[in-house]
């Protein structure tokens, strides 16, 4: 059965339509990367999956039932920012979810139970390369270090669904690659379902099993808020890495995306092709060439 079903979903803020007519099905264990123009509603979509934004029209189903309208432990998140607790050290931040689980009353562990939790947390902290900063507070960390901490905090619980909002934006390529490995290995091991927003198209292609492009197909210059964004492309990706494809779950059959209307203003892919030199184009050609070039 599909894990998540999106049926004719709309999201409006007052007069402004942000998202319109989304229809998708996502199976357990898929890794969906989301790209799209700034301000087109990607974060909003993630918030709906999280349960903190309400659905304006349509349905959002988890396991066939309406998605709970509040966040819960089965859905982890890494926000664009504000994602860690300023009053806890690195270790405290990562241990938090373990403590919450084991100690319903105080939310704190002591003695042996604490030792165990600490050990688990330390492993995860080492995995994100913060071993040196174990006892520092977030304000003592650089932006990239905070982001890694947020990641560690979310990953230690192995949530069924992991929502990532530009998690690697502030990381340098070296550490970013480490993080990619970490997320991928946990994803494979625990059959997580991941939704990840990124602005790095390469990352989108490289990490995901499926790449969604959010964009406005309809645009009325007189009333720029009248139409919302849709998922204009849903591409099977990940072929660059054979081993990923091998292990990724069978993908629901999807329609071939329609040819690209070449008049709409901020065409993401147009920009990519015009401005970024060879690399992206190379990938674009080889991976999704079938689609629309």
């Amino acid at each position, binding site marked *: 059965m599909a894990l998540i079903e999106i049926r004719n979903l709309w999201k409006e803020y007052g007069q402004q339509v942000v998202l319109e007519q989304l229809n998708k099905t996502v199976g357990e264990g898929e890794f969906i990367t989301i790209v799209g123009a700034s301000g087109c509603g990607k974060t909003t979509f993630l918030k709906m999956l*999280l349960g*903190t934004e309400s659905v304006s029209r349509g349905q959002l189903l988890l396991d066939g039932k309406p998605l709970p309208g*509040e*966040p*819960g*432990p089965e*859905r*982890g*998140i890494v*926000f664009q*920012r*504000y*994602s860690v*607790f*300023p*009053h806890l050290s690195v270790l405290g931040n990562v241990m*938090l*979810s373990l*403590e*919450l*689980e084991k100690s*319903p*009353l*105080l*939310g*704190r562990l002591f003695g042996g139970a604490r030792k165990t939790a600490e050990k688990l947390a330390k492993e995860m902290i080492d995995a994100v390369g913060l071993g040196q900063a174990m006892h520092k*507070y*977030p*304000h*003592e960390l650089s932006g990239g270090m905070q982001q890694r901490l947020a990641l560690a*905090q*979310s990953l230690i*619980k192995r*949530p069924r669904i992991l929502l990532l909002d530009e998690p690697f934006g502030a990381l340098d390529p070296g550490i970013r690659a480490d993080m990619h490995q970490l997320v991928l290995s946990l994803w494979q091991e625990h059959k997580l379902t991941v939704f990840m927003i990124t602005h790095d198209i390469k990352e989108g292609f490289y990490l995901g099993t499926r790449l969604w492009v959010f964009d406005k197909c309809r645009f009325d210059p007189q009333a720029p808020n009248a139409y919302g964004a849709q998922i204009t492309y849903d591409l099977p990706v990940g072929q660059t890495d054979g081993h990923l494809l091998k292990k990724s779950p069978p993908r629901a059959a999807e329609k071939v995306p329609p040819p690209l209307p070449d008049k709409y203003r901020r065409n993401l892919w147009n920009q990519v092709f015009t401005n970024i030199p060879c690399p992206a184009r190379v990938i674009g050609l080889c991976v999704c060439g079938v689609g629309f070039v």
Partner: protein
Amino acid sequence: MKKLINRVPGRTARWILGVLPFVLCLVLYLAASNARLAENENDKLLPSFSSFAGAIERMAFTPDKRSGNYLLWQDTASSLWRLSLGLGLSALLALVIGILNGAIPYMRAPLSPFITAISLIPPMAILPILFIVFGLGELAKVMLIVIGIAPFLIRDVQQRALEIPAEQLIKAQTLGANTWQIIVRVLFPQIMPRLLASVRLSLGAAWLFLIAAEAIAATEGLGYRIFLVRRYLAMDVILPYVVWITLLAFLLDYVLRKISRMCYPWFHAQIQTAEN
């Protein structure tokens, strides 16, 4: 030449500058006092420093004729005891109700307007009713402090709890926290330093209510003494008492600040506190 906004005095300069206005005040007082004493050498309003010395000697270092106690210390002890009880109780109330109000909409809806209303009632105007409820003993004095500052503290804590980014509450839920756990592990520790800051801000008000309470019915205490000797305009006692009260409050303020800095370093690193 740097812009004014970027020029920061050094350690010594800051000390000297900090002491300056106090010295100025002292000089001003001396001048005014001398002028008045020149006119009437027994003037009671602005006594000379030697009168202060005499009064201090009498209050602090000579046992009282009637009771044999050292009045200043006795007064200080009872006032500080009442003050700390009142402050502690208020802070506790603020912590509990403020956090609950901030966290739980169904608590906030009934309590927030009510507490706002209570905070706006001038307690001095309803003393008779307070007497019925709390009597006229020690409890009444402590309760007047509580009634005076707790609503303010509660409102402040509630406000601060609401200012904690929603992202943190959401995050905690994704980490498996229920409402209670969010309160004890996310809100409570982050509110504590803010509560300390509010308590510091309300120290002045707390003293005010303590003194008012001691003026209503008491047999000792700093406020009692001030109101008693006011009956014969003994400014030579009142002013040292006021300075003493201010000093005690200053010390309390200092101690609270140090505690906050020691226990919540992350909080003070976040806000650029050049608090003095």
